[in-house]
């Protein structure tokens, strides 16, 4: 009985205590449900995002650069499909065997093999190693033939920049290559869109227009597992190709320039005298920008770098030359405008001029006799211009010259390698050299020697502004969104006012006080080319369709000693470095002119022999293409 009592008591204890536990269990389960609720319902969004972040990974692909086309729509910087070879290490059965096979098939260097082995260690096994960035078609075919034996190898087709005209546009376009760290950090857009293997503009317009050309990345979204391995592709978002940019240049003319300057150092610029369109801009020698796309080899680079004709320098924009006699139209114009001389003014040339005990020589030792402005221009008489410069003074000359674009950048900000050049005046010398101006310096400035320095493009613009009747042009190389036809440009120019699309205001474009003076200079330049005894008479074209007017220049690169003057050596007898630069500026057709050009042949000798004949060749082509260009003017409007 006691025992049974005890048993009942025990049962009571057990039951009572079980009840307490039961209550505790309910509380704990409710707590767990609350926790589940908080995670799955309240914070569901947060964890869903985290889960997606876990599993979705985006791969950016290099953007496709926009094409650059010439005025006629020909692609001058495009994109090409290239064949590449990738290895995916995790799929390779025998890595060493594969490398030996590839080495034989593709003639890979030991260095390259070492690089691949290094990459294999560094990269994840499913990241592809690029064995070759640019396979030739025959290599690509070969690889595809042996693919059964090359487990883990993936032939890939991708897109790369391509310059179809090779070296023709190098100095205009520049080239693209892999960016360095600095370049990535400097440009936010590049920073944002950068992916390994992407190339950016390193020079020229490719660099300047980077943000327009670059395009947007294509994005591939993959689901990845915890180890980062791609499981499946979720979506592919296409990138947008960069903007297409149309230039004012004409490839046929540009190519001709290249041919005409073949194996010479020099530059040719051609400009529309009304619209300011740059039709050609060639610096010789050039080099092939395609070489830089996949990393230039050391040998090729040394060849370019060590070439004595300096292909790396863009002579059109960064080459600084004494303009020589090509400055004479400006000297004459300045004198006329300032009423220092008139057309009847004459100077007697005896072959030299004495000033304060210094002798200033005319190029013609025997002298030209009495010469008027027209004859002085035609025969490029130095004595006449010494005298005119003396009467005019350098400061007044400087004002006219700067009006016509000397001493200022022609294309403004477009090329960061463009140089300003220099047109001196008394103040400049005082400020920069700390010395007073000497009258003798005025004399040599009058024949384009001395301190004066100009780029070939400046001379071209100067000529264009004389040719169009003395109006300012705004040179441009990119066809803007609202291209103005040359007739409109001409009309608004001749009304004296020009609507500037950048500042959106009407600007006074008259560079002259009296337009008659411009006409006089034009006539003198015509005579220089088309009349007997003119310095470029031999290079004239009689057909009025092609007839042009010009002015030669021969710029000394060093002082001519008395002995040398007496020797009067032939060009071939002078060391290359000491030979004069040959220059020529011209415009045409003489009636209703359209185009101006400047030609410089470094160390080419005299302008009449080395430079003017090039103009003759070129004008034929330029004017033959005139109608085509007119038809093309409205073909496509492209926004930059």
């Amino acid at each position: 009985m006691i025992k049974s009592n005890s048993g009942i008591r025990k049962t009571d204890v057990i039951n009572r205590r079980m009840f307490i536990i039961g209550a505790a269990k309910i509380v704990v389960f409710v707590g767990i449900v609350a926790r589940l609720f908080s995670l799955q319902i309240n914070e569901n969004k947060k964890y869903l995002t985290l889960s997606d972040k876990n599993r979705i990974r985006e791969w950016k692909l290099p953007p496709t650069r926009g094409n650059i086309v010439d005025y006629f729509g020909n692609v001058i910087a495009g994109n090409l499909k290239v064949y590449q070879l990738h290895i995916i290490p995790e799929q390779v059965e025998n890595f060493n065997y594969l490398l030996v096979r590839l080495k034989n098939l593709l003639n890979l260097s030991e260095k390259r093999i070492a690089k691949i082995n290094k990459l294999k260690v560094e990269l994840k096994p499913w990241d592809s190693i690029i064995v070759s960035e640019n396979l030739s078609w025959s290599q690509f075919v070969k690889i595809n033939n042996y693919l059964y034996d090359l487990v883990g190898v993936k032939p890939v087709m991708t897109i790369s920049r391509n310059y179809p005209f090779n070296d023709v546009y190098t100095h205009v376009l520049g080239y693209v290559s892999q960016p360095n760290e600095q370049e990535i950090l400097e440009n936010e857009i590049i920073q944002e869109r950068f992916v390994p293997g992407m190339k950016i503009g390193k020079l020229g317009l490719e660099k300047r227009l980077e943000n327009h050309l670059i395009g947007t990345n294509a994005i591939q979204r993959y689901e990845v597992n915890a180890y980062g391995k791609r499981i499946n592709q979720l979506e592919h978002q296409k990138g947008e190709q960069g903007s297409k940019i149309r230039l004012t240049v004409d490839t046929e003319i540009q190519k001709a320039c290249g041919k005409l300057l073949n194996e010479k150092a020099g530059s040719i610029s051609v400009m529309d005298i009304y619209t300011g369109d740059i039709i050609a801009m060639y610096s010789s020698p050039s080099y092939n920008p395609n070489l830089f796309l996949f990393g230039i080899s050391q040998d090729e680079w040394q060849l370019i770098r060590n070439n004595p004709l300096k292909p790396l320098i863009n002579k059109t924009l960064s080459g600084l030359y004494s303009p020589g006699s090509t400055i004479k139209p400006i000297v004459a114009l300045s004198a006329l405008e300032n009423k220092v001389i008139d057309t009847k003014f004459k100077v007697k040339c005896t072959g030299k001029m004495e000033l304060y005990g210094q002798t200033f020589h005319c190029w013609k030792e025997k002298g030209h006799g009495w010469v008027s402005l027209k004859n002085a221009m035609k025969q490029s008489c130095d004595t006449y211009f010494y005298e005119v410069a003396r009467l005019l003074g350098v400061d007044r000359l400087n004002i006219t010259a700067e009006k016509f674009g000397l001493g200022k950048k022609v294309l403004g900000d477009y090329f960061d390698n463009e140089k300003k050049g220099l047109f001196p005046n008394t103040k400049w010398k005082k400020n920069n050299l700390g010395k007073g101006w000497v009258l003798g310096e005025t004399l040599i400035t009058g024949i384009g020697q001395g301190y004066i320095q100009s780029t070939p493009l400046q001379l071209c613009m100067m000529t264009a502004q004389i040719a169009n009747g003395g109006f300012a042009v705004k040179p441009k190389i990119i066809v803007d969104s609202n291209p103005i036809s040359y007739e409109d440009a001409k009309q608004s120019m001749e009304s004296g006012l020009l609507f500037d699309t950048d500042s959106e205001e009407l600007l006074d474009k008259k560079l002259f006080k009296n337009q008659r003076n411009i006409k006089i200079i034009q006539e003198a330049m015509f005579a220089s080319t088309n009349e007997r005894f003119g310095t470029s008479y031999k290079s004239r074209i009689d057909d009025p369709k092609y007839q042009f007017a010009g002015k030669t220049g021969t710029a000394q690169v060093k002082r001519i000693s008395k002995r040398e003057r007496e020797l009067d050596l032939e060009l071939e007898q002078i060391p290359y470095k000491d030979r004069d630069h040959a220059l020529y500026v011209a415009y045409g057709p003489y009636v209703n002119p359209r185009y101006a050009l400047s030609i410089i042949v470094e160390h080419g000798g005299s302008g009449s022999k080395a430079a003017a004949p090039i103009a003759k060749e070129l004008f034929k082509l330029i004017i033959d293409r005139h109608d085509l260009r007119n038809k093309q003017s409205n073909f496509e409007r492209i926004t930059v």
Partner: protein
Amino acid sequence: MFQHDRLSNEITLFQKIKNLDYILLISVILLSVLSIFVMYSTDGGEVLFHTKNHFVKLAVFFPLMIFVAFFNIKFWHNFSYIIYFIIILLLIYVSFFGIKSSGSQRWMDLYLFVLQPSELMKIAIIMCLAKYFHRIKIENVNSFTSITIVLSIIIIPIIFVISQPDLGTSILIALSGLIILWLGGMKIKYFIYSFITFLISLPFIISFLKPYQKLRILTFLDPDRDPLGAGYQIIQSKIAIGSGGLNGKGFLKGTQSYLDFLPEKHTDFIFTLFSEEFGFIGSVGLLILYSIIIFRIVRIGAISRSNFARLFCFGYAFAIFIYIVVNLSMVLGLLPIVGSPLPIMSYGGSSMLATMIGFGIVLSAKINHKQMIA
């Protein structure tokens, strides 16, 4: 009364089958079927190693449960001490000759099957203590001798298990034992005193923990301190559960799981996968299923005539409850990571064997609930 006793001693097979608790049985079957589907999902939607083995184990252990149930509860009472001692011997064997895996020595090779005796100890300790409290007079419960004895019963296996090392199982064994002490009538103040002593000596205990165990506690307190290392499991588990939302991502569509972001998804983190795929509704459903099982076991205990059966059922119900709570709290980031499986759901033979034997004894108590034990 005596007649009644005699009758129940002669229960026929038919009556045994009739007397099974079908709600409990159906719940266990449901849980088993569910566990196969979840295992199928951990295998990435294919019948692979884990699914097959899990199925085979269920197919063997479920009949074993019925087999256990058909023994009279008196039989289990009589053999409780012996079973306890056998498992102590197994633990000793394992500590000398056990199979080592990832730094701990817990298993013994039975040729067909690798056994983890510490899992069986979870049941054995309940049986042993239930028998002890069944036999002891209520007046003697709080005597010095009996406290010494019951504490020894709990501490001896724990020493072996903790030295394997296996902190998770040790805790579960300790809690299973302590609950019987509680139910058996040990004074509440002892529990309160020991709890306070435990809290005070906690820093001391922590200094004895292995470096990886300390790391787990630190990680629990701040999972973001090392999100790719120690905190990885818990962060990924919370992401998986949280991203499941109300309805879940769908069966076989748990991205965290099939993209391998979830660690240990077959075993300790099986609930994470389940919750990711079936969401809040599924998770609460699973909890309800477990609650039904626990409730049925408590009910069977409540109708049992013998205190042994009563203590065993209450103790076992609490043990199941504790397994679930510890496992869920761990995967939900409420407790530090201690290895502890979710009953039936988790992959693992010994755990399932122990659980099924437990259910078997509970069912035996049901069949023989009128049985008195002297």
